[in-house]
Structure formats: structure tokens, C-alpha cells
């Protein structure tokens, strides 16, 4: 029971990440895939930030009279990862727009069937 309260945060986040991965793998619509990718990414970020939490700590901005701070290192890594994530998303969306122009559809099944015929 003690274990549950120590770990529930990780468990919920893992479930959320798997839901994101399910959208990426199972759905054929490219925009929905990218939304799923973002969900997956955000869940991994929450997992990382949970590692860095120190109970009773405060945000890592140094102040007089405060001794306990949360771990700043995951914050740095995730801060940069978020920006990389939006860069990748934007490039993916640009590709989706191009695919729509070349194929007239953004459903993966239709694209495969078109490639099969020509």
C-alpha cells in the first residue's frame, strides 16, 4: 500500500504515454498521429519532472532562507526537449501539407493504396 502512494504518479503517466503511443501506431490519419506523438511526448516530460521532485522542496531559484530545492537537471533537459518537440511537430506538419498536395489525402491507407496502383 505504501508502494502505491510512492509510485501512482509514474503509473498514471505510463498509461498516458501508452495511450499516446497507441494513437501513433493504430490511427491512419497523419494529423492524429502527430497529436498522439505530442501526447506521448508530454507524458514522458511529466515522468521526467516527477523524478526531479523533492518533497518539501521549492522551485530551483535561489533565495535566502530556503534550503530544499527540487532537482534542476531534469528541468533543463525537458525545457530543451519541449522546444525540440515543437520543432519536430512543425516539420511533420509541413510534410503533412506536402503529402496532401501530392496525394490528395492524409490517410495512410489511401496513400499506400495509391502507391500500390501506380
Amino acid at each position, binding site marked *: 500500500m505504501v508502494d502505491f502512494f510512492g509510485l501512482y504518479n509514474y503509473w498514471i503517466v505510463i498509461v498516458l*504515454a501508452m495511450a499516446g*503511443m497507441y494513437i*501513433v*501506431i493504430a490511427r491512419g490519419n*497523419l494529423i492524429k*498521429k502527430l497529436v498522439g*506523438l505530442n501526447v*506521448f*511526448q508530454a507524458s*514522458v516530460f511529466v*515522468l521526467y519532472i516527477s523524478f526531479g521532485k523533492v518533497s518539501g522542496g521549492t522551485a530551483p531559484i535561489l533565495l535566502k532562507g530556503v534550503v530544499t530545492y527540487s532537482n534542476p537537471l531534469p528541468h533543463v*533537459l525537458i525545457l*530543451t*526537449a519541449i522546444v*525540440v518537440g515543437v*520543432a*519536430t511537430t512543425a*516539420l*511533420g506538419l509541413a*510534410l*503533412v501539407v*506536402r*503529402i496532401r498536395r*501530392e*496525394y490528395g489525402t492524409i490517410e495512410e491507407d489511401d*496513400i499506400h493504396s495509391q*502507391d500500390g496502383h501506380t
Partner: protein
Amino acid sequence: MLREHLPVLVIIIPLIAAPLCILFRGRDQAFGIALLATWGSFACSAVIAAKVMASGTLSYELGGWPPPIGIELRIDALNALILLIVSGIGSVVAPYARNSLLLEYVEDRSYMFYCAFLLCLCGLMGVAVTGDAFNLFVFLEISSLSSYVLIALGFDRRAASFASCTPLSLRSTSIQPVNLFC
């Protein structure tokens, strides 16, 4: 004087050349910059390879911070070999880029092609020399994004745009779990 900084120079020569291509814009200027940068980093990696063969593993502390605090570049014999191969292929390929771009009738955006080419080179070399897991992820990201761009520019537009989307979704299923565990 710059000899001890070679491990980082080999990365930042193409990294600085890439925005310069955008700033100068001209087709010929960009070609010249790309040529100089690829040959420059090839020369650097040749010197690095000679040094590694002579004196063993090279280590370079970025920002002057020692490894667990800061980021370290680490080049052993295998890394030096990979570095040499990557920059060698880059410098062999670069002179011919101009003529193949002429064949594709894309002169108005050729400076962007050179920029993406340099970034791809920079990313691949950055992966080879780094000694830090998160830094590896960052440079992997540079090389993968720039190669999606290069593929999507490819000869057959139709296949190319979908072909570069497939690795993007593959990335989602492969890189992210790596990110999760590393």
C-alpha cells in the same frame, strides 16, 4: 593555439557555416562556404585521427566544466575513424552538389540545400564525438531533422514526401523510448 580545441572545432565549423549560407543567400557564395566548411572539418578530423593514433583517447571539456557537471567530448580510435569517414564522404560529395542541383532546376533555393547539408554533416559528426547521453540525443535530432528535409527535397516528390514522413513516425516509436530510458 587552436590545436587543443580541434574536437569542438570539427563540429562548429559546419555549424557556423550553415547560418552563413542563409545570410549570404547567393548560390555561388553558399556553394563556396559549404565547400570550405566540409574541407575544413575534414582537415580537422584528419589531424584528430593522427593525434588519437599517436597519443590515445582525446577528451575535451566544454565550458571548462569537468564531465559530470558539464559536457565532455570524447574521441577514441573508433570515433576518430567514424569522424574521418563522415567528414571524408562529405568533402568528397560537396563539390558535385552544384551540378546535381543544376539538373533539378532548384537554383532559387540551392543555398537552403547547402545549409541543410552542412547541418546533417554537423549532426552526424556531433553524434560521433560526444561523450554525453543527452547531447547524443540532441545531435541525433539535428541529423535526423536535416535528413528528413534532404529526403523530402528528393527527385520524385511524391515518394519523397511520404518517405520522409515514415521515418518521422518511426522516430516517434523509437527515439522517444530511448529518451525515456537514457
